[in-house]
């Protein structure tokens, strides 16, 4: 990796390449910064299955103990499990998740979590980075060094909560055959068990928690061929694929075809809206229009936010607040949302993307619906094709790119929530925005068919390439 700058600090935390930019020194300093920022107290940590997780974990423990913190180590857990653990335990003042989600194996990263189990808000990340850069940490003396406690039951508690909030008997009665692909990631320690307890007949593939990814850990169709084949082989009703830290879920239908990760949120929203009525539905700006279809069906207001889990959560919290003023009883029922990349956020459990909650909702829906997944999808949603592209674009070229795009679409109404979004009356749209994690522009387009979507995307890509060169 010589010559390529790989360290990335930003609202999603700090991420880098092991053996290159992500060094024990950097990690221990970030841990001290976090401990200093929170003023000590108890901090929970958890990790995905990446082999570098132990090295990172050790650095975090060292840095946290050095700033007088108590550490609760949850071990290898899905990120939502860690987030929920922070929220449920009053003593926990914050958390750090060790995971680089869908990035390839040589990466790892830290994501910082608040006392309430939500990722740090952007202004808080800024404050944390200031502490880190200042380099003055609140180190404690020998007698104040606290303890590391191992908590092996966070997954048990997560499963318990999930089972208490889903119609287990309906799912069990449907006797569904499920193939789950955990990508040898954090889902490996929980998914098979959860699905079994839901009464499904489960075949688990890639559920060895060793972090040796059998395919790229992003649950998009091109990575799911093995799962597709397994669904066909086992005659399964549904295939489910998780990413490395089990916050995202994608589906394969009963014909053994990956339906596309956008359907996860769409189907989950359908299930929730059908049950809870006209609550606000919230997603990021590049999530499929299928959300609006669900909203139309159940009279739900829709809110769109900038990309990023924490942005969606903030928008959800705001929407829930507004809705509460209309006089409902429990705030957690007042909103539902997520991201079209397969991230479902249901505050009934917690304000976090949770592939396990997504599994529960979708299986409940499938069981109730009584029809194969492909039928359910065809009935619930109009034809839609979505394409997601990436174009290299160094930060220095961002401004001229944005200007060029605005010029290109000058005769349209533009949504500038996060980059630039153009919508057409036939409900097709294209969106272009800089990535939070890489030096690229992401272009997403949706239309009734693939050809149209790709044409829309291509137009924007051409403009960008024209500026970048």
């Amino acid at each position, binding site marked *: 990796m010589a010559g390529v700058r790989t360290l990335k600090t930003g609202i999603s935390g700090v991420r880098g390449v*092991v*053996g*290159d930019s992500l*060094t*024990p*020194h950097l*990690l*221990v*300093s970030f*841990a*001290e910064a976090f401990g200093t920022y929170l003023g000590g107290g108890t901090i929970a940590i958890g990790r995905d299955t*990446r*082999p*570098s997780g*132990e*090295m*990172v974990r*050790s*650095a975090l*423990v*060292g*840095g946290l*103990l*050095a700033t007088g913190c108590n550490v609760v180590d949850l071990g290898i857990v899905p990120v939502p499990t860690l987030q929920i653990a922070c929220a449920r335990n009053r003593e926990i003042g914050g958390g750090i998740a060790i995971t680089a989600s869908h990035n390839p*194996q*040589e*990466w*790892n990263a830290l994501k910082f979590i608040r006392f309430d189990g939500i990722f740090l808000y952007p202004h808080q990340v800024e404050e944390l980075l200031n502490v880190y850069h200042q380099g003055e940490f609140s*180190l*404690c*003396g*020998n*007698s*104040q*060094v606290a*303890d*590391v406690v191992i908590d092996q039951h966070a997954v048990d508690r997560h499963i318990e909560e999930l089972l208490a909030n889903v119609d287990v008997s309906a799912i069990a009665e449907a006797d569904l055959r499920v193939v789950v692909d955990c990508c040898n990631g954090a889902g490996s320690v929980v998914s098979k068990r959860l699905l079994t307890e839901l009464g499904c007949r489960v075949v688990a593939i890639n559920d060895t928690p060793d972090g040796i990814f059998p395919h790229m850990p992003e649950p998009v169709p091109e990575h799911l061929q093995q799962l597709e084949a397994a669904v066909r082989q086992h005659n399964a009703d549904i295939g489910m694929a998780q990413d490395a830290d089990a916050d995202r879920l994608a589906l394969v239908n009963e014909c053994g075809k990956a339906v596309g990760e956008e359907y996860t949120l769409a189907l989950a929203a359908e299930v929730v809206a059908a049950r809870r009525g006209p609550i606000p539905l919230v997603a990021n700006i590049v999530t499929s229009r299928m959300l609006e279809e669900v909203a139309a069906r159940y009279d739900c207001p829709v809110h769109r936010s900038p990309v990023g889990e924490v942005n969606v959560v903030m928008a959800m919290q705001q929407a829930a607040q507004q809705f509460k003023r209309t006089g409902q009883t429990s705030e957690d029922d007042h909103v539902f949302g997520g991201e079209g990349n397969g991230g479902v956020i249901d505050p009934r459990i917690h304000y976090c993307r949770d592939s396990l909650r997504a599994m529960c909702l979708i299986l409940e829906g499938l069981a109730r619906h009584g029809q194969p997944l492909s039928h359910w999808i065809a009935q619930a949603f109009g034809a839609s094709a979505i394409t997601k592209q990436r174009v290299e674009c160094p930060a220095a070229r961002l401004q001229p790119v944005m200007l060029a795009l605005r010029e290109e679409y000058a005769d349209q109404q533009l949504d500038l929530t996060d980059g630039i979004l153009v919508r057409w009356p036939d409900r097709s749209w294209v969106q272009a925005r800089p990535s939070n994690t890489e030096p690229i522009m992401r272009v997403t387009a949706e239309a009734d068919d693939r050809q149209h979507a790709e044409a829309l995307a291509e137009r924007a890509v051409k403009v960008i390439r024209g500026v970048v060169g």
Partner: protein
Amino acid sequence: MRALKLSIAGVRGVVGETLTPELLVDFAQAFGTYVGAGPVLVSRDTRNSGKMVMACVVSGLMGSGCQVVDIGICPTPALQLAIKEGPAVGGIAITAGHNDATWNALKFVREDGIFLNPRQNEELLDIYHQGEYLKAQWDELAPMASDPDAADRHLQAIAGQVQVSKIRAAAVNVAVDCVNGACSQYSPKLLRELGCAVVIISDEPHRPFPHPPEPSRANLGQLRAVVRAVDADIGFAHDADGDRLGLVGSDGQIYSEQMTLCLCEEMILRRGDPGPVVTNLSTTQTVDDIAARHGRQVHRTGIGQAYITESALNYRAAIAGEGSGGIVFPRLNYAHDSMAAMVHILELLAGLDRPLAQFIEENIPRYAMSGQQVACPTEQAFSVLETIRTQQLPSWALDRDLQDGIKIMGDGQWVHVRVSQTEPLIRVIAEARDEAVAQELVRDYLGQVRQLV
């Protein structure tokens, strides 16, 4: 600000002040870079900060591709033996020895179980200063392993060095002070194995040090009281990480730490282990007297564990040790070993036909030692020493040694002027048959130093 200390004794500092996580991580990476990817054993003493230091060290070692093996809380000589006997490429002991609990430190051990020698320590420091470390890729990282039996294997090895049945038969009545340090869970066990009736003080590893963890006279009051109260035959005091041993006699007499070496020397030379005796320049001349009685030579080195063990190796010594109570038994391992010293003294005791106090009276010549120090900025220290070195020797002088400052030896007396390795001081130590003479020697040379500073 209590400064960071980088020396041949490793890197040591105050937790929360100079011993920062970044420093620990970097030194661990430097060491991992130095020894290369391979198994590296890590141990610690009972200091509360040990878990923090451990986590930083583990991360740094892993980052450089080492396979970390955690052997837990145990004496440093146990770590050294485990490294020597296994496939490890090196190890780190997390202990600040006799420093108080606010300190912690890293001591670096090489493949053969011996601390890095001064040259090797410099090489390690060079790597640290350059800041270019081996950085393992994601698929080159090794998971952590543990070896919780290393300390017990050490006990077995120690027991294997002595005549266990002879010691058992003597049914020695022992009091032992573990100072709530790394020997807490091992020394009492070993003593019981050897058939001793044991009264234990301070064997709780989770509690703080009840007194400074150094087995010197000032810290042995409680042990003495217990020895008297239970009428023990002998009292043993360990330091925090099991390398030094202090002694209290059955009459409640607190022996100087020098006695530990003398008794061990007597034991080993009686046993007939071949080779000379190695000690440092500041240790009592009693060592020479005992060696002479057995027809052996004595080689003296500069102050510091690393010098002792190097010389013990080079001279193929029968025994080596320092007046601080740290003894090396080459037949066991080239490591300072408090419990090994304890056990050898028990064997000596078991073989005596008279009380220990009487034996000492009759066979171990006693001298009076006196010492003082004066502050001296590092820049000046060496020129001060040069002046003293080059001046004319006093009439009583028979020989001198310039290895470490200057030591002037006479008949039954000597004086040693040297610069401290760890603080901005010049130390003057003298020994003579007569206490007044020793003190006079110190006063004389201290005065000379003071005039020059």
